[in-house]
């Protein structure tokens, strides 16, 4: 039968020759190969000190964005929680009081906003669902912890800083989400 690819190999059942049955030539061949590998460049990346570059639109730890005046974008509409296939997001909505206009952009805001990082699969459906430009995945790597409770990220870990230099740039990610290029 004609082979469709050129990759197939003919398997033979022939007896080993005397030289092959001695094993020793094969063993020395193997020893030569392993010895050569001792001096090859190592493929290891020493992780915490040395980090590989991510893609520009890497889907890592979430951020809750603020607008230019430092007000939280999130209005606790719950669309992200509905969209989340892993049901990792929970939130409690609250009403903005008088005098809190500089903190929250609209009348309703998230008093609590938790993401369970053990459930999250970093699919990015929450950002797609968000109508308020509030949640984005960033190229930060979600930190590891020793206890399960610490994997539930609360607002103090999720909301970006109010100062300009503590803002997290998500422009690439935002473009990707808007263009539908997940």
């Amino acid at each position, binding site marked *: 039968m004609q082979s469709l690819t050129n990759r197939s190999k003919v398997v033979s059942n022939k007896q080993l020759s005397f030289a092959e049955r001695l094993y020793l030539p094969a*063993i020395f061949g*193997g*020893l030569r190969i*392993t010895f050569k*590998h*001792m001096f090859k460049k*190592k*493929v290891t990346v020493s992780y915490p000190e040395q980090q590989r570059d991510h893609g520009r639109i890497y889907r890592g730890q979430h951020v809750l964005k603020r607008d230019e005046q430092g007000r939280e974008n999130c209005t606790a509409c719950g669309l992200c929680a509905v969209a989340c296939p892993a049901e990792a997001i929970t939130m409690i909505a609250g009403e903005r009081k008088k005098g809190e206009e500089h903190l929250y952009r609209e009348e309703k805001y998230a008093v609590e906003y938790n993401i369970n990082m053990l459930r999250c699969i970093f699919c990015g459906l929450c950002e797609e669902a968000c109508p308020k430009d509030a949640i984005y995945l960033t190229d930060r790597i979600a930190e590891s912890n020793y206890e399960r409770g610490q994997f539930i990220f609360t607002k103090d870990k999720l909301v970006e800083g109010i100062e300009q230099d503590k803002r997290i740039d998500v422009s690439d990610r935002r473009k990707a989400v808007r263009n539908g290029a997940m």
Partner: protein
Amino acid sequence: MNDPILIFKICLVIVLFVVSLLIAAYSTYAERKVAGFMQDRLGPNRAGPFGLLQPLADGVKMFMKEDIIPDTSNRFLFIAGPAITMITALMTSAVIPWAPGITINDMHVPVQVADINIGILYVLGVVSLGVYGIMIGGWASNNKYSLLGAVRASSQMISYELAMGMSIIAIVMSSGSLSIGDIVAGQSGWGGMHWNVFVQPLGFLIFIICAFAECNRTPFDLPESETELVGGYHTEYSSMKLGFYLFAEYVNMFISSAMISCLYFGGYNFPGMEAVQGNVHEIVFALICFGVLFAKILFFIFFFMWIRWTIPRFRFDQLLNLGWKVLFPLAILNVLITGAVIIFL
């Protein structure tokens, strides 16, 4: 025996004990480093500079682990197993000559714990005792994997001891002595290069293969083959008892390397030895010789690891076929050839 000699011997025993354990500890580190390098990785490098404190960390971990003795095991034998393995592993080094003799109180003292005239028989005896540790430990665990591992270990060791003994007999015939001190001293000819490996290449090959089998090292690590038997004879062991088994393996490797160096690679003899001997103090010369022997030992330890990370494990029938149908007849042939050469040449 007068006092200075006794003190010297006691010091030697202590030094040997510490050195064996140190070498064994750092062999575990070296093994992981060598494995890493051969697989294009870095190996352990977090504990201390270059990961040099890794053995310490491993040791502490071993001690801290919970020590479990299974309910259905034979308690006494379960504890005796690792102890026997460790004791026999450490005993063999007593007859290895570490350097040419030095003079204490006008007496020539060999740098050797015991220069007994049947050194080789002693080594063979102690090595075959080593299998008891594994056998007892595996049987006392009352676990079928342990028992299988133990049975494999004993049948493997018994099979390979024959060929090993035969290859040593050829050495004994050509050097005319059972004392390891004499055998090493007899390899000083040809400007320090009259090594038995050049006289007995076939014997060396048989011996080194058997040494691998006796140490339960790859490609003969069937007693603990983790892919088939979970952990082999030490499946049920934990904490420092497991540590002892693993440690004893490395001590055995060290002793085997020392035996290979002494029997086939001239022990402490090295080329240009006589020129050095005339120019330096006796103790300095002994230290140089010790260094040379040590370099050879370290090379063979590396060779053990090199083989381990190169060759896959044998199947058990292949292992026994190799032992009984290939190595044993070859060893006998080697004895016959050696005898013929001695008689007719």
